[in-house]
């Protein structure tokens, strides 16, 4: 950015901020004007609600407790899904026999949205922690397998040739060429899986839970407290965005060779 900017440039630079501010102002007036009755809380009410929930428990625990409850489920499920899913996808992508055995069964399950597993999960595991973790597991597992699989399959044959000409054996081709070249695809799968996980935990908690962010917004609905719902939604969005950013940092750390690609 150059030092001297014309008023128009300054204006356009602040346009995004202006637009957000404008929305909040319109929202505030719309809410306090009473056009929507009680169903639209004002931004101020949302902020107050947020501050309240920091210290005052909703149900069993305060806001932090609900976030942690959901995070715990997501992280447990995600870890298990990654530990099983990635090796499985890699195996499928590398070994044709493994592919022939696993792929047809996998293809039956793949198109079923993880959320559609909720009733069966509840039937199998009751309404405690297990069904929620199970749903999240399905959410993360499918993209983890799929991306590891396609990542390996799209390994550049030229690079494999280069490594072979350098004397690599099969095991070395896998470890030194195929796996690293699949890493970006694997990370895309993890990113995808994590956001699905976050969505699944919400759905599972809304169907039946006593803590967690999904419980929080449903509780807001039961209490006819839209401020609580909106606070919950914003928290859900913020946490989701944060874990996505976190994973991107992990990726940059694991794959330092990847050039920055914006958006």
């Amino acid at each position, binding site marked *: 950015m150059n030092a001297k900017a014309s008023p128009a440039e300054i204006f356009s630079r602040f346009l995004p901020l202006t637009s957000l501010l404008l929305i909040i102002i319109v929202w505030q007036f719309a809410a306090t004007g009473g056009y929507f009755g009680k169903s639209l809380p004002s931004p101020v009410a949302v902020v107050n609600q947020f501050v309240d929930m920091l210290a005052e428990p909703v149900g069993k625990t305060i806001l932090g407790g609900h976030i942690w409850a959901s995070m715990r489920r997501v992280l447990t499920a995600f870890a298990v899904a990654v530990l099983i899913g990635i090796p499985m996808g890699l195996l499928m992508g590398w070994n044709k026999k493994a592919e022939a055995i696993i792929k047809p069964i996998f293809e039956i399950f793949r198109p079923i949205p993880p959320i559609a597993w909720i009733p069966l999960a509840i039937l199998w595991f009751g309404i405690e922690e297990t069904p929620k973790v199970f749903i999240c597991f399905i959410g993360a597992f499918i993209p983890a397998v799929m991306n590891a699989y396609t990542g390996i399959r799209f390994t*550049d044959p030229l690079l494999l040739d*280069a490594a072979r000409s350098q004397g690599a054996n099969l095991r070395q081709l896998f470890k*030194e060429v195929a796996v690293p070249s699949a890493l970006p695809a694997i990370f895309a799968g993890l990113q995808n899986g994590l956001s699905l996980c976050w969505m699944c935990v919400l759905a599972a908690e809304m169907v039946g839970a006593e803590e967690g962010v999904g419980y929080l917004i449903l509780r807001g609905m039961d209490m006819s407290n839209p401020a609580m719902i909106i606070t919950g939604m914003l928290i859900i969005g913020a946490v989701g965005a944060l874990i996505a950013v976190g994973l991107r940092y992990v990726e940059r750390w694991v794959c330092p060779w990847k*050039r920055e690609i914006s958006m």
Partner: protein
Amino acid sequence: MEARNIDVKSEISCQHLYKSFPGMDGNVTEVLKDVNLSVAKNEFLVILGPGQCGKTTLLNIMAGLDSSDSGEILLNDVPVSGPNPNLGLVFQRMALMPWKTVMGNVSMGLKFRGVSKKEREEKARYFINLVGLSGFEKSYPYQLSGGMKQRVGIARAYCSDPEVLLMDEPFGALDAQTRYMMEEEILRIWEKAKRTVVFVTNNIEEAIYLGDRIVLLSRCPATVKAVYPIDLARPRQFTDSRFLEVRQKIADNTDLAL
């Protein structure tokens, strides 16, 4: 490194190579037809041929990455049946591992062979230095220019200590300026660390500038059309009258498509 002298004994040779691929429409495309050639120890042999005439296939077969339908490759009188540490390959599209640093790329062959880290880095450093990339050991390929990438490719091929270097249009993806520079560079490197070189190109000037001998291939299916020994003293000049004479002679005999 010890200097090696040209030995009249042929080091690598192709004997009656045939190769064809099944085409899309069920037809069979014949790519190589009775290709015979032999390369002397420490000779710089250039294979010159028009685009799409099976040069890459020929080199891949020589490197043991692909197999011929019939005929064989002899390396020191032993048939080649797969990738061999005595055959180093330099690719047109560099084929560097994006996730490995310059050091990692150059030393990968030694790593595959289980050489200790200290030893392989020492050796790789020697060749990185030889190709003029000292200071870039920790860079990733995306941080390098095209010419630098191919220097890494050359150092990598050298680092496994092969007897024969096979180069598949190594400068084909470079801009003209860089290409001239790299042509000088490859000769400088080769003079310093002599190996048997088989260099494939579709560029007639490049062939005459570099080669001890030029093997001219025909259009598809490729077969050896003529062999030209180039007895011009190095460094050669593109504008030298004898250079142009040779150029004319070869050009009259080629199917190079323009």
